[in-house]
């Protein structure tokens, strides 16, 4: 059995909502904007506590990003919220010019990222958002793994000055990180110590990586699992320390392999310590409708796939 257990499953977007609720009471500079998706973003408590600090933009995401940039000029800390597809890809140029290039303290906080959005299908299942956002100079990119971490990350990004993309999701997933764990932007968290292979995972695939480590343990393989909640800036020191010991690795993410976390790790290691790496992610395809777990199985984003890739990575040492 894993050293990690959980009592409940919750959605990471509810962690965001809880973080915003906390901020509504503790940080008068935090304001929220939403493009007609209050319920999906779990913003009701924030709006109830401080209605004057909430801005409904209607289904107009481009305008929302601009207004957020304006609010930040006036000294506020805006959280612009919607689904990940509409909050990144749809408004890329608005984020690029009015937020990133302008150096504005805007938090783009998006739910329903990745395949686990489920039945709505590929129009809504963005798998390119990490790539889009990490390419923007100065943009911080965070993809927390469970309810507690999403809440902590939400509070942490409010206290950080600069543009941030905070990505979370719709399905309920195990709550296994400690409620009081401090969230340090850019500081990876080692979950399981191991010596044979390193798994670097982000978001929903962190729990799957813990399960993969269990599968591998039965085969006598000692797996190191590291939660890379911050894709940018990447904790290169933690990565280097781990692979120096394990000499091979797997990256795991609910995202395109192109442009994702694995990409960032490979780019870093290719210039410092080239080692066998395998990638768990969506391989250059769009998603489709279906139950979240069925989709994750079909596209190979689960513990079994991660374990298989780990064995392959080990075999290439």
């Amino acid at each position, binding site marked *: 059995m894993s050293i990690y257990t959980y009592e409940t499953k919750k959605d990471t977007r509810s962690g965001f909502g809880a973080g915003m609720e906390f901020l509504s009471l503790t940080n008068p500079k935090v304001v929220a904007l939403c493009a007609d998706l209050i319920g999906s973003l779990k913003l009701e408590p924030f709006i109830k506590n401080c209605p004057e600090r909430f801005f409904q933009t209607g289904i107009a995401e481009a*305008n929302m990003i601009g207004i957020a940039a304006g*609010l930040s000029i006036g000294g506020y800390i*805006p959280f612009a919220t919607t689904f990940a597809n509409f909050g990144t890809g749809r408004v890329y140029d608005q984020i690029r010019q009015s937020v990133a290039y*302008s150096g504005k303290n805007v938090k783009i906080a998006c739910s329903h990222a990745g395949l686990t959005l489920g039945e709505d299908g590929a129009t809504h299942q963005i798998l390119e958002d990490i790539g889009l956002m990490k390419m923007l100079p100065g943009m911080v990119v965070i993809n927390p793994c469970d309810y507690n971490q999403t809440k902590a990350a939400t509070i942490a990004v409010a206290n950080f000055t600069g543009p941030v993309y905070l990505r979370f999701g719709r399905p309920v997933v195990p709550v296994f990180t400690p409620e009081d764990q401090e969230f340090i932007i850019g500081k990876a968290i080692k979950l399981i110590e191991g010596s044979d292979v390193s798994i670097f995972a982000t978001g929903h695939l962190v729990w799957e990586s813990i399960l993969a480590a269990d599968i591998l343990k039965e085969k006598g393989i000692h797996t190191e699992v590291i939660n890379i909640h911050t894709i940018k800036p990447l904790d290169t020191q933690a990565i280097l320390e781990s692979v120096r010991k394990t000499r091979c690795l797997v990256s795991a993410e609910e995202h395109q392999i192109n442009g994702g976390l694995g990409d960032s790790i490979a780019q870093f290691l290719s210039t410092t310590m080239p080692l066998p790496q395998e990638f768990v992610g969506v391989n250059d395809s769009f998603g489709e409708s279906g139950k979240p777990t069925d989709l994750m199985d079909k596209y190979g984003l689960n513990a079994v796939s991660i374990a298989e890739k780990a064995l392959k990575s080990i075999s290439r040492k």
Partner: protein
Amino acid sequence: MQTQELLSIASQVRRDILRMVHGCQSGHPGGSLGCTDLLVGLYFEAMNLKLNSSNDQVVFNMSGLGEDVFFLSNGHISPVLYSVLARKGYFPVKELSTFRKINSRLQGHPTPHEHLEGIRIASGSLGQGLSVAIGVAQAKKLNNDSSVVYCLMGDGEQNEGQVWEAAMYAPHHKVDNLIAFIDVNGQQIDGPTEKIMNNRDLQMKYEAFGWKVLHVNGNDMAELQLCLKEAKNLLGNETPIMILMKTEMGAGVDFMMGSHKWHGVAPNDQQLEEALNQLSETLGDY
């Protein structure tokens, strides 16, 4: 301020614009010349700007709290904004000579990225400035700051969808500390706006969205002064204000007027001389 004083500043700003675009052989003189009177009228009279109490010089704060702020959405007319900011004292006039050259704070399109005093947002990719201005106006309301937000857009820029998202939002949220302008010069890059993408009746459109709409001849300084006063008196009535400002592209230089030819073309040596001969050097060239 006397109209004549403003016109005298405008003459120098027009000289700056021409010399800047000539100096780097690129940039957008047409729209810059057309909007010169507005920007001079705003910065040298209408706007309430923060001054250093010891020497009465303007001081720049990113937040713009407690002072009026201006946003240029059609960022390609950066020469006029740079000249007016420099002439107002935000940065040294000499720096205008670096426009569009390497290692300059005066990028082709305005940006706060190089920390140029007076610039609060990047613009250039069109259609974004009105949204930003609305956000700043709402921040002012949250801060109980009664100062005014100004925003200038182009008429070609009205083609952008985001403009209409913002147009819908501002009256809905009663953003009544905002005065926006459209530079109606009737031209865009590929030709007359009527031919490329007809804006039809901008007054009817904005009124339908809930704006109070005014008209002005943007190249008549006295009329502009009156219009800006009237607009300010209309603030605080739960409606944003849109001023449809008719201008002539290239205003002030006879051979640059009446065509979109000078939208994004710099004058050569001879053309510069001919143009400068029509504008008196009132404040000293940089």
